[in-house]
């Protein structure tokens, strides 16, 4: 008897959703609440933050004190996965560089993300008029605004109304107040002419009106571990688990989707997947297939779904699938505030998202690079973990000792032990997150030679930064130096040209988008403005793949709004029996 068989399910669902992150979770939530029978396939294990979160654990509860050996962001982080997964490789082309972060689990990367929840602005959707560099989205901010509003009300976001032109305000919960180090940052930034405003994060600083399942934040500052009382946004806690409670959504975890199945006419009929639990092959059927597997995985699935009707891969008659991949730029700096030596101790954990940030409000006509970046700030008396106290020899020679005299850097013994106490809580950091121009020649494709351990052909990336991004990073570094100087901080020199001004390699910021872009012209885009495939009317993509051009804003809030918009479009079309 053959050990491996393809098991075909006889049931036909209304919709199959591949992936359970922000996009898949929102689509599942809306469709299940509307009464559709939905099957959600997730490549990783089931994850419920209420049971599985590492929240409130102490560093000594990890033998590595929370170091990032097992999980990229440490033992307590809420993401199973990282830039490398055992048995699931990816490759790069022509010695270019791309780092692909994958979290295999219910809720995906939303379990550990920074909860920074920014709307894209009018110029982010329609940026072509600014400098001619990017293609416009087929939709405007006003098209998406009602959905951003609904997401704000449904999920919750704190912030302040600022009336900035390209940083749209939302419907905000009260924000957390800044920590002491952040007050120094605000003051220094103001002197440096850098705008800093209250942060915007999806954390329930107050009980969410009308929601009995989620708790109000109790300020442990550990959103990155995911929240046991659902006080922040994770797709697992806020979308998928509530959708399951309707009885209309079924999740199959550990189901790695191989391809989207189509019939002779080219319509999607379902998907095939391999179960990581029993290593058997399965096929499941549905009237609609919705991909929310991540920008990289959704492109991979489409390119791997070849048929007579779709010889170039599904939804890819235009050839754009995989192209226009772009991640945010990132460059950072940090230092310490000698004014805060020997500071009073108190609990300043705050929330696990940003308390303050610097939006982009500057005129590019006076600058040598297009578009902008925002700055995320932090610092203070955080929980010690692996790396705590590192490189004291670079700090303790820079300031006078208790007796007012300078001391020799480094050292040991009682005096060194005292230094750790004196310096505790003085450090801060700042990180720029900027808009990279979407380009056709930055792409992912199927590597013709390599498969993963499930036999699925893997992605091969080709990605290079241009001068635009490098110059943007230089501007970040110059700005950071200026702010730190005005703060009265002690800090190192700016990153220089030898490191591209500290510009992180593509993929390191984990905001990759754009691989299955939307547009009005089927020759230049894979999806229409409702994220419906031009070539296959019952196929939708609801993750960050449809983005035409990312702003400097973190992608999640826009993924949620667009997925909700797509799900409502599906419901309206069903009423008209079009899909």
């Amino acid at each position, binding site marked *: 008897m053959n050990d491996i068989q393809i098991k075909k399910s006889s049931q036909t669902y209304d919709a199959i959703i591949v992936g359970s992150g922000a996009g898949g979770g929102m689509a599942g939530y809306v469709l299940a609440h509307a009464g559709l029978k939905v099957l959600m396939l997730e490549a990783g*294990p089931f994850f419920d933050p*209420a*049971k*599985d979160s590492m*929240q*409130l654990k*102490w560093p*000594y*509860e990890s*033998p*590595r*004190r*929370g*170091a990032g*050996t*097992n*999980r990229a962001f440490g*033992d307590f982080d809420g993401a*199973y996965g990282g830039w490398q997964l055992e048995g699931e490789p990816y490759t790069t082309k022509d010695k270019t560089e791309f780092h692909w972060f994958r979290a295999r689990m219910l809720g995906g990367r939303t379990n550990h993300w920074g909860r920074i929840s920014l709307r894209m602005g009018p110029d982010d959707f329609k940026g072509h008029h600014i400098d001619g560099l990017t293609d416009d989205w087929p939709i405007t901010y006003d098209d998406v605004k009602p959905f951003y509003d609904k997401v704000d009300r449904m999920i919750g976001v704190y912030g302040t109304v600022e009336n900035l032109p390209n940083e749209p305000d939302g419907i905000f919960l009260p924000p957390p*107040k*800044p*920590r*002491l180090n952040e*007050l120094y940052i*605000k003051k220094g930034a103001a002197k440096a002419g850098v705008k800093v405003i209250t942060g915007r994060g999806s954390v329930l600083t107050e009980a969410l009106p009308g929601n009995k399942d*989620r*708790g*109000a*934040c*109790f*300020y*442990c*500052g550990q959103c990155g571990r995911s929240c046991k*009382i659902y006080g922040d946004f994770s797709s697992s806690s806020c979308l998928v688990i509530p959708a399951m409670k309707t009885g209309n959504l079924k999740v199959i975890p550990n189901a790695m989707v191989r391809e989207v199945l189509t019939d002779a006419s080219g319509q999607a009929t379902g998907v095939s997947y391999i179960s990581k639990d029993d290593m058997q092959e399965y096929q499941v059927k549905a009237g609609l297939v919705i991909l929310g597997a991540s920008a990289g995985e959704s492109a991979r699935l489409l390119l791997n779904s070849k048929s007579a009707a779709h010889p170039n891969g599904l939804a890819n008659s235009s050839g754009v699938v995989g192209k226009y991949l772009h991640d945010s730029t990132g460059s950072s700096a940090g230092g310490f505030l000698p*004014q805060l030596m020997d500071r*009073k*101790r*108190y*609990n*300043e954990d705050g*929330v696990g998202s940003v308390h303050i940030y610097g939006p982009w409000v500057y005129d590019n006509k006076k600058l040598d690079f297009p578009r902008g970046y925002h700055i995320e700030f932090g610092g203070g*008396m955080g*929980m*010690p973990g*692996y790396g*705590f*106290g*590192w490189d004291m*020899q670079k700090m303790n020679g820079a300031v006078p000792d208790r007796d007012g005299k300078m001391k*020799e*850097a*480094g*050292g*040991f*013994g009682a005096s*060194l*032990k005292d230094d*750790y*106490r004196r310096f*505790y809580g003085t450090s801060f950091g700042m990180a720029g997150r900027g808009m990279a121009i979407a380009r056709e020649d930055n792409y992912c494709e199927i590597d013709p030679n390599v498969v993963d351990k499930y036999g699925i052909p893997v992605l091969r990336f080709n990605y290079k930064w241009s001068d635009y991004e490098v110059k943007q990073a230089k501007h970040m570094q110059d700005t950071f130096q200026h702010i730190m100087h005005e703060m009265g901080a002690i800090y190192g020199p700016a990153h220089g040209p030898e490191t591209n001004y500290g510009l992180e390699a593509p993929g390191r910021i984990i905001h990759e988008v754009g691989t299955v872009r939307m547009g009005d012209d089927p020759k230049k885009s894979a999806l229409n403005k409702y994220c419906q495939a031009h070539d296959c009317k019952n196929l939708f993509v609801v993750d960050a793949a449809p983005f035409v051009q990312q702003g400097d804003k973190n992608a999640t809030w826009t993924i949620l709004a667009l997925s909700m918009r797509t799900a409502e479009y599906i419901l309206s079309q069903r009423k008209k029996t079009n899909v």
Partner: protein
Amino acid sequence: MNRRDSLKAIGLGTLSATMLLDACKPGSKKQAEDTNDEKITPDEAGRLPEEIERDKKLNAEKFFTDHELATITILGDIIIPKDAKSGSASDAKVPEFIEFIVKDIPDHQTPMRGGLRWLDVQCLNRYDKTFVDASSPQQLEMVNDIAYPNKVKPGMQQGVSFFNLMRNLTATGFFTTKMGIEDIGYAGNSPGKWTGVPPDVLKHYGMEDVV
């Protein structure tokens, strides 16, 4: 759900806020059973089977020789000695942490093993004894030569690099224990409500107007 219900949901709701703070503080009775004195057996909820398996495997391996560990123990206590506020590095089981972390992060293995041997050879040449067997003043003399990166003598640079790593691992190992967290005064990881910088602190730093 309001904040009180939130706390109830994680099993903390029946306690008053003050009791909560106390219960979550290191060194309190509630968590006394998890002290550094005992073998750490992490709670396995939410951990992947391969993560649990890997920790078991690492715990079963031994990297440092007894001689190397004895050297690490003396060095650790020279770096972080007992004082009026807290115990020494070895009181906080820092050598055990270093043994684990070099297995977990193999990049530390060669700098540590090689650095320890470098130190012993230095001591053998100077004192005809290994570091462990050298007298206490000799040990301190040796450490003095590698503890100050900016005034390093020729030929001692490798020792400085080793001692920097040893200092880093000792500090991290110490201040991430219950003893070290209590010493450093980290006051968080306790459910509560953040209402901003306390007024006396704002006043102290002249930050009342920066909000």
